[in-house]
């Protein structure tokens, strides 16, 4: 649905030049929720703005729903943007308009008639759980409600794609969860493709099917979240399971990741019994990723190389993802 290919974008010139996007290639499948994570200044904002051409890349191409966005201008570009909704960290609602009129702005732009605008605005406000707030002004709403208006406005014109620019970063944890669940629900119900950028790992954990890790204008890794979790040296895996620094140990250190496996299986006890290893637990983290208990345990395996290798092979044969750290 979204395909970004070899996109480069620089700001400034000469020695002060900054490469906000450095040869970025990215694919988002139809209907999935794709999260781009990275610290501020990583180039995420620039990336999401190239998708609807708020930023023009220096080179490379951006395709959305079959349209080559970089080649569009004027009326064609505006038409293409009707298919791409966008929500923002600071909501960006018009303070002079009521909630309903904010949503109707989207429909005024697409040229809908007065009664159709009203009907559609009320319909979509109900969809985001804001029935009864149509006549309120944004200043009278909480942050979560404002973002719901933002979502309603973005979706009023029935777009195929929703772009989310740090949409939950200004919200408290509980409200963040509600908004993320709403996005997930809408994505499922409306068949929306969602591309979001965030610096919060919780967002990826809660709703993303796929993710990319970005740093200094480059994409370091990308793919389905579950696949990244079982990829050696995955940055996303390390970020989702913060086990801290690797301590000084005499034995080997391995990390076992459990995905989609009942975590009550006595893996460690088995290891000790069958391989005669005095297993030490150095750390563990359990996270709910996509509603599924997923965990990673860091173990110390004191023993000679052969015993450790046999133990690791045994674990792998049980379908566990094992990474030998040292």
């Amino acid at each position, binding site marked *: 649905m979204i395909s970004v290919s070899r996109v480069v974008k620089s700001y400034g010139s000469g020695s002060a030049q900054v490469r906000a996007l450095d040869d970025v290639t990215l694919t988002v499948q139809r209907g999935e929720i794709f999260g781009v994570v990275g610290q501020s200044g990583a180039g995420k904002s620039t990336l999401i703005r190239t998708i*609807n051409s*708020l930023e023009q890349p220096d080179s490379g191409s951006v395709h959305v729903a079959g349209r080559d966005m970089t080649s569009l201008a004027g009326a064609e*570009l*505006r*038409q*293409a*943007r*009707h298919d*791409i*909704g*966008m929500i*923002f960290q*600071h909501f*960006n*609602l*018009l*303070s*002079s*308009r009521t909630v309903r009129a904010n949503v109707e*702005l*989207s429909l*005024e*732009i*697409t040229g809908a008639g007065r009664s159709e605008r009203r009907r559609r605005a009320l319909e979509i406000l109900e969809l985001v759980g804001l029935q009864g707030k149509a006549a309120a*002004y*944004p*200043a009278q709403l909480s942050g979560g409600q404002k973002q719901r208006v933002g979502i309603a*406005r*973005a979706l009023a*014109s029935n777009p195929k794609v929703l*772009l989310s620019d740090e949409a939950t970063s200004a919200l408290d944890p509980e409200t963040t969860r509600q908004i993320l669940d709403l996005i997930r629900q809408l994505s499922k119900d409306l068949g929306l493709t969602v591309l979001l950028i965030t610096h919060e790992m919780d967002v990826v954990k809660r709703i993303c099917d796929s993710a990319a890790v970005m740093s200094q204008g480059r994409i370091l890794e990308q793919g389905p979240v579950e696949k990244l979790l079982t990829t050696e040296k995955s940055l996303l895996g390390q970020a989702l399971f913060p086990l801290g620094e690797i301590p000084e140990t005499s034995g080997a250190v391995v990390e076992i990741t459990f995905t989609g496996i009942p975590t009550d299986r006595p893996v460690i006890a088995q290891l000790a019994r069958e391989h005669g290893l005095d297993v030490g637990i150095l750390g563990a983290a359990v996270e709910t990723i996509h509603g599924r208990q997923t965990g990673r345990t860091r173990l110390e395996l004191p023993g000679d190389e052969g015993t450790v290798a046999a133990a690791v092979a045994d674990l792998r044969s049980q379908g566990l993802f094992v990474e030998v750290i040292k």
Partner: protein
Amino acid sequence: MIDRNDPYFWADLLDTILKGAGETSYTVGVSLLLTIVFGLAVGVLLVTTEAGGLLAKPFGSRLLGIALNRVLDVLVNMGRSIPFIILMILLIPFTRLLVGSFIGPTAAIVPLTIAGVPFFARLVEIGIREVPKGLVEAAQSLGATRWTILTKVLVAEAVPALALGLSTTVVGLIGYSAMVGAVGGGGLGDVAFRYGYQRYSPEYMFGVVILLVLLVQLFQSLGNFAARRLSHR
């Protein structure tokens, strides 16, 4: 000196002042309309032709945008820096060309408008600058045209600030209109000057002053009220 004991003294005074007030209303009213139209346009252009602005590249040319921005900025500064009494005199040939005479309420509209436009334009500029950039981006992401963004976002969101700016402008124009009156523009200034000053009548002078104070109070309060009612921040 006007004879205060004349039985028609107060009736004449009322007549004269009301006639003056009528002329002032006409002069200020028309100048105000012209000031709103041109001041709004100039103020909007001042903001939007800046780098990264909505009209940074009118007709695809950044050079035209820069030129427009600089020229308007210089013109506005000129209009703001020339004292009104001098501007009035400077404009006499232009006024004569435009309305055929430089005396009378209609002729007074020309210098008043030319003084009002840059004044209001700066206030418009300030008001529009206050509109968060994110709102423009949001409208762009919805596929809005530049005209839609201009009218439904930038100007619409600045309306409370514009209402305040407008009342400040009206007050300024009323003040200027009194000055035009002193050099043949008619209106309340003319009454105060000819009856109050040249013919030594404190009644006429105070009558005009009280009316002017009331007018200024009225317009300022109206502006404040409108700004409060229109703002939903």
